[in-house]
């Protein structure tokens, strides 16, 4: 025998971020013996860098099933947050009082309006949204500048504290008896022993099912088991201010106020590869945009900024895929670990445990990229 130790589990979840932890919680409830193999602190960690939005607005304009998926996941959030609070004592700070996406000029307004109309069209008018002009917008949020043209508004949207969410999910994993293992660098996986063998630098894990939720590493890790998920990083930079008196009644795509009063300013998209650094150019642009929307923030101090990498599929829509070649191996890839958390913990975990959910996952197979 080699020096590495061998361990047996029913299911191994590769990845302990928001996606992996939510799915693992759901699977663990079925009583399966489960291990979560997490990365190290220096890995790319979308779950620790993200903005915390529960966001439906505008998603799936070209992909109706994704619009429905997002809405269905968002609608589960109040109940899911209550369940987490009850089970773990962690209040993730859900505020689901709608969301605003500002339009600073006529071009933005026109593009937004047509995008929203497209979602409405594709989903049979299932989603409520409104385009608010400046006067109406300022009735909702008086601090908005008179120079802002308006905003799109959807009552479905909201936000949570993503770090509290991660903490709640991990506390739940612990309570459910899941074996959490940090700094596990997965080297390879293969079918074996009537199930799967997952090799890390220090251990060999034997399991019946393996679920890859490893963010940007999924593309590389899944390949061993016949799963092909093309992924690319999309950087977002985020600014953090001092705590200020609450003035935002709801989430916005550009600025989010935490329950503690901190403002997060974000919404940049950069295709720069595996680079999570910040740049003066983008930080300046984000700050200027926030001030164009909310001039009263001019005196507020920025404390820090960071970059994080979104996990993007070619069409930006999630992948839920079981390996055709090796059933029992799953790839889960998405950039909306917060919005979709309840759905991951319930329907997707259920699907992995054998519940008949084909109708739900069928539009989200990775096969759509094979052309």
């Amino acid at each position, binding site marked *: 025998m080699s020096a590495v130790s061998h361990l047996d589990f029913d299911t191994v979840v590769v990845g302990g971020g928001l996606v992996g932890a939510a799915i693992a919680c759901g699977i663990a409830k079925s009583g399966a013996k489960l291990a979560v193999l997490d990365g190290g602190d220096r890995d790319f960690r979308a779950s620790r860098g993200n903005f915390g939005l529960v966001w439906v607005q505008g998603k799936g304009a070209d992909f109706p099933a994704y619009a429905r998926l997002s809405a269905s996941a968002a609608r589960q959030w109040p109940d899911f947050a209550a369940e987490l609070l009850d089970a773990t004592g962690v209040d993730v700070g859900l505020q689901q009082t709608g969301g605003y996406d500002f339009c600073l000029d006529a071009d933005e307004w026109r593009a937004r309006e047509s995008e929203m109309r497209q979602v409405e069209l594709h989903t049979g008018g299932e989603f409520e949204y409104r385009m608010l002009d400046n006067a109406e917008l300022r009735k909702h949020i008086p601090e908005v500048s008179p120079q802002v043209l308006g905003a799109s508004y959807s009552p479905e949207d909201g936000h949570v504290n993503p770090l509290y969410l991660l903490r709640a999910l991990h506390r739940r994993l612990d309570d459910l008896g899941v074996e959490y293992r940090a700094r596990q660098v997965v080297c390879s996986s293969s079918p074996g022993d009537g199930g799967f063998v997952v090799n890390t630098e220090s251990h060999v894990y034997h399991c019946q099912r393996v679920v890859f939720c490893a963010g940007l590493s999924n593309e590389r890790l899944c390949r061993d088991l016949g799963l092909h998920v093309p992924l690319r990083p999309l950087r977002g930079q985020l600014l953090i201010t*001092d*705590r*200020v*008196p*609450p003035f935002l009644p709801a989430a916005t795509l550009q600025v989010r106020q935490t*329950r*503690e*009063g901190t403002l997060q300013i974000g919404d940049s998209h950069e295709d720069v590869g595996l680079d999570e650094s910040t740049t003066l150019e983008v930080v300046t642009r984000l700050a200027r945009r926030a001030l164009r929307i909310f001039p009263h923030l001019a*005196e507020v*101090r920025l*404390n820090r900024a960071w970059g994080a990498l979104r996990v993007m599929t070619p069409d930006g829509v999630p992948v839920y895929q079981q390996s055709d070649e090796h059933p029992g191996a799953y790839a889960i890839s998405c950039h909306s670990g917060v919005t979709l958390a309840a759905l991951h913990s319930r329907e997707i975990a259920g699907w992995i445990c054998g519940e008949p959910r084909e109708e739900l996952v069928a539009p989200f197979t990775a096969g759509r990229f094979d052309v």
Partner: protein
Amino acid sequence: MFKLLDEAAELVEIELDGEAVSVPADVSIAAALLYLDRLPLRQSPVSGSGRAPFCLMGICFECLVEVDGLRDQRACQRKVRPGMRLRRQLLVSAESGA
């Protein structure tokens, strides 16, 4: 609550909320205010609850005070200087303008 290790330490005069006070020279503003036992240093702008220095190493942002007219300075990251004007960031103080 806090005592000086060196009771013969040099003191300097600064201004706190408009009042002249003596504090040890060459310590952080946070240490000086803890020495004076003038807590809280500020109040949460959300809940109004009182706050005091916590981490003392610049990461928690709990010890924010106004220094020479500049708000939201981390008291643990700056040293006292003779004549420095400090103001606690209390919501009740009428002149804070918050």
